């Protein structure tokens, strides 16, 4: 009978050590093996597209995914090249990024911060994604941006409109192309002044989370600067579906303008309820009652149907823009999918090209090199006119659109019309503006 060289205690010790090693997340150990997290050493590079594939924003997420796939196709030399042809930078040649073929993985944010972080983490650790992008919610964007900062990868935000994303929660590894609540207020205020005058009483209904709070603050500040009085600011639960009990008090409040700081299903339902209660036919203080939806989305406007007619708001981009870049993107997207792209699709397509271009200009996938290439970078040809990625907060400054629900749409996509293109200078604010105070950009993290 032979005696084994392995004792029970020894096996347990070795197992425990090996287990600890395996269990240690690679997210924290990548630096020991490479110069930065997920350095692509093969012939391809992987991007992580983190969008809502389930949940209430799934349709918006699906449109984002379409745009990402189109961007990857263009980067790899397929299709008609889309906005790569109109982009002011000519670094991208249709041969991938730095000669590496672009591949992608997708994650489902479910529009929940924890789920979004988990899917982003999985794409970084298991799939080797060198950049994460996407999303349709500020809560998600802020959560994923924080994770990417810790992990040492770049985060190119999707649809996020809260001031906090590039305000108190800004991060060096995160970049936002989309506009924000402050910019909506700055763009809308002059239009509202021309339409409704300076003597108005506004009543705010606000979704009770980071985006709603900062938009309410921004719009109230912008309208109060016009001379408007803010009658009340009422917070509504994010999960609310029937807003009738919040709309009813508006009727006798003395307000003559209702500002709906709602997005998605909240916006569809609150606007529908407001119209049901006859607010649009109401006359208060000798003036017609008006409704304002500061953040518009074509996909959401469709859900509200005829109720959006004549109602003003702002948007990041619209397919009816006639500039060369927008037309190229609409042609490319429309030919491939059969309908025009949404603002969410435009944003994520731009973010993908901007990331690829920054890597190309930097000559490296190293996040710190990419950050340096994107900071204070000025470009044109991506549909919003001349645009600056400001270095101090990683916020894009570009023209903002004021739109109105169209009275006589010619198709199911023709729901909004652009009434004014507000120049970037009018929506630009100093980096130390009080609405963006708190937090620090910090320094870039490459994971090294």
């Amino acid at each position, binding site marked *: 009978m032979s005696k084994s060289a392995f004792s029970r205690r020894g096996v347990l010790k070795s197992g425990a050590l090996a287990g600890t090693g395996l269990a240690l997340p690679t997210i924290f150990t990548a630096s020991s093996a490479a110069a930065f997290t997920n350095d692509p050493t093969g012939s391809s590079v992987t991007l992580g597209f983190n969008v809502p594939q*389930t*949940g*209430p*924003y*799934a*349709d918006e997420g699906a449109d984002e995914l379409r745009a990402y796939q189109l961007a990857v196709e263009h980067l790899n030399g397929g299709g008609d090249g889309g906005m790569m042809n109109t982009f002011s930078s000519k670094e991208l040649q249709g041969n991938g990024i730095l000669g590496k073929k672009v591949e992608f993985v997708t994650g489902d944010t479910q529009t929940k911060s924890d789920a979004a972080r988990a899917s982003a983490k999985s794409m970084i650790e298991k799939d080797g994604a060198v950049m994460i992008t996407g999303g349709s919610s500020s809560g998600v964007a802020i959560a994923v941006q924080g994770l990417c900062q810790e992990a040492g990868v770049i985060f190119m935000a999707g649809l996020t409109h809260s001031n906090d994303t590039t305000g108190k929660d800004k991060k060096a590894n995160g970049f936002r192309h989309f506009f924000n609540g402050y910019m909506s207020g700055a763009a809308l205020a002059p239009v509202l002044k021309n339409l409704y005058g300076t003597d108005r009483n506004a009543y705010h209904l606000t979704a009770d989370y980071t985006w709603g709070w900062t938009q309410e603050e921004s719009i109230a500040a912008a309208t109060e600067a016009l001379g408007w009085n803010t009658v*009340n600011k*009422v917070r509504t*639960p994010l*999960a609310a*579906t*029937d807003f*009738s*009990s*919040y709309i*009813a*008090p508006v*009727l*006798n409040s003395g307000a003559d303008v209702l500002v709906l700081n709602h997005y998605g*299903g909240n916006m*569809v*339902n609150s606007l*529908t*309820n407001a119209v*049901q*209660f*006859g607010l649009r*036919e109401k006359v208060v203080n000798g003036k017609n009652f008006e409704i304002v939806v500061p953040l518009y989305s074509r*996909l*959401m406007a*469709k*859900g*509200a*149907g*005829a*109720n959006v007619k004549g109602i003003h708001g702002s948007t990041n981009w619209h*397919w*009816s823009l006639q500039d060369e870049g927008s037309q190229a993107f*609409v*042609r490319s997207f*429309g*030919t491939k999918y059969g*309908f*025009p792209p949404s603002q969410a699709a435009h944003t994520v397509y731009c973010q993908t090209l901007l990331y690829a271009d920054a890597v190309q200009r930097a000559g490296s996938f190293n996040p710190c090199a990419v950050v340096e290439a994107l900071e204070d970078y000025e470009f044109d040809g991506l549909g919003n006119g001349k645009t600056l990625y400001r270095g101090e907060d990683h916020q894009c400054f570009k023209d903002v659109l004021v739109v109105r629900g169209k009275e006589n749409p*010619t*198709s199911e*996509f*023709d729901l909004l019309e652009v009434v004014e293109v507000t120049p970037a200078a009018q929506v630009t604010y100093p980096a130390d503006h009080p609405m963006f105070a708190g937090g620090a950009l910090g320094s870039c993290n490459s994971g090294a």
Partner: protein
Amino acid sequence: MDAILLQILNGLDKGSAYALIALGLTLIFGTLGVVNFAHGALFMIGAFCAVTVQRLLSLSYEVVDESQKDFLGNPLKVKTPYVESWFGPEMGGAIIDWAVPIAILFAIPIMVCVGYVMERGLIKHFYKREHADQILVTFGLAIVLQEVIKYFYGANPIQTPSPEALSGVANVGALLGMDIVYPVWRIVYFFFSVVIIGAIFSFLQFTTFGMVVRAGMADRETVGLLGINIDRRFTIMFGIAAAVAGLAGVMYTPINSPNYHMGMDFLVLSFVVVVVGGMGSLPGAVLAGFLLGILESFASMNEIKSIIPGIDQIIIYVVAIIILLTRPRGLMGRKGVMEE
């Protein structure tokens, strides 16, 4: 005073939906003893019956209009609904406009069939299982149903307006010399729910079928021993309960644009309504539905929220806790129900 009356109206209107869903839940629990977490999904399927009818009535053929361009610069394909070409623009337009009321006729047989298939195909296998098993299987079924709806109809809300003649507001305060306006369709919804609730109670109270069902709810075994096929009648009641939830969903579509998860939004609240009203008590479910609807509306008033911030989000659960502590069987619960 105006504000208080407005919130009472609002509460009655909210309570209508709660009462209708809770009534169906109680019918199923009272007859079959099943805790049906898929009941919210039945409400949602009813709403999508309205969406389907609207889409069927709006089916169109396309004519190329060279004078207009689409988003790609190609000649625009103008859509004309078939009903407008068959019945003329005015009559055809009116038919499409009345899609939601028309959907009631479509929804009743569909919902009865859905209820029948659900009960015979799945739920009957769980009659003798624990309530926890019933909850798990019906909750799972609800998720499957909502994902199926999402697959076919997408995740965004779909606008399903009320007929033009029933949109707008009515001055309900005129009789009292006050200026209180309220949406006409919401008033229609309230009276519709009163009619449905009245019809269900009359059916159970004044028909032989209803008498047998009530007897079965009280003592299933004895009714069975009398040679009556009580299971068959209970299956029919499941179908009726599904139809009630479905009709509540159809009529709700103009109030809020339907989406695939609207059933889940109502499900938890409706269960609280059933528990507060008393498990198995039909009048309790209706009473609790309206009561909690009114309380929820009052809790949303700014005056109340300024005293207790956030009360609008928890009022229903606070009331449920208070009632269960003081009356463990709920407002009108019977002894012995769910107490074994």
